[in-house]
């Protein structure tokens, strides 16, 4: 069986990157080559799609899409195929024509990360009402975090015998005045 790196290099060309630190082995491809990469791997024996999901990378202004693929006839050799889409308009080709099961994973990735899968099933999978910000994007804030009192606001110095001399700490990740202030 031809190794995945050879197969991907032939399909994707210069844009292929192998991540030597990743376990399992991982390959990064440009988003425009996503469908070809998945097709080439499927033809090379990676016929089992375990999952497809997103990772928000706000420091890179990108939403990464990751697929975990395995080759049942090669002792279940498995790998991660990854790509970075533009966070402003995350979009990728659907691979549901290659792996039927990808349809559900793409529906969930669409509603949780806002990634548009061209040619894919546009129906939401889990959410009955679309969230204003895709819930698994890191800039999506939880209303509960603004209305539930943060246990960390308490301090031993607050009581009658106390000696308060420190500045107030705010809950990490909760903007000032949320949910009615900034970020709402």
């Amino acid at each position, binding site marked *: 069986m031809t190794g995945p790196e050879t197969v991907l290099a032939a399909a994707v060309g210069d844009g292929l990157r192998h991540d030597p630190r990743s376990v399992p082995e991982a390959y990064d491809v440009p988003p425009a080559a996503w469908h070809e990469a998945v097709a080439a791997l499927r033809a090379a024996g990676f016929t089992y799609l375990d999952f497809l999901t997103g990772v928000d990378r706000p420091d890179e202004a990108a939403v990464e899409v990751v697929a975990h693929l395995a080759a049942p006839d090669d002792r279940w050799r498995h790998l991660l195929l990854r790509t970075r889409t533009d966070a402003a308009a995350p979009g990728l080709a659907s691979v549901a024509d290659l792996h039927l099961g990808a349809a559900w994973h793409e529906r969930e990735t669409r509603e949780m990360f806002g990634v548009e899968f061209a040619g894919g099933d546009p129906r939401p999978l889990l959410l009955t009402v679309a969230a204003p910000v895709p819930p698994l994007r890191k800039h999506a804030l939880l209303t509960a975090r603004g209305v*539930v009192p*943060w*246990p*960390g606001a*308490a*301090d*031993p*110095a607050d*009581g*009658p*015998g*106390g*000696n308060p001399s420190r500045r107030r*700490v705010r*809950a*990490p990740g909760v903007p000032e005045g949320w949910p009615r202030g900034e970020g709402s």
Partner: protein
Amino acid sequence: MTGTPAGPPPAARGVIGLDAAACTSCMLCVRECPDWCIELESHQEQVSEPGARRPRTVNVLDRFAIDWARCMYCGICVEVCPFDALAWSPEHRYAGAAPGDLVHDTARLGGWWPTGS
């Protein structure tokens, strides 16, 4: 029985125990917990030492509680405690009939402190 025939391995994340005598109410675990599942009530007292010019301020723990329904067993609280007052125990039989049964306070958390090797 779960895990091996002898039970779960000693390092299994079953529950977190509290050594209340070691706790200084520094609030680090409460503030670092991603789930906000730790509650700590405390106050300050002035302690006079013989021979010292001024009394010193000490924190006194009143109540330490963890809500296991919210806890995600990440262990950040155990790692961050500067006084090793929190520790993992492989004990895991604490299912409750109501959500409130999963809030364990100071005494119950003290009972989970790991014993043995």
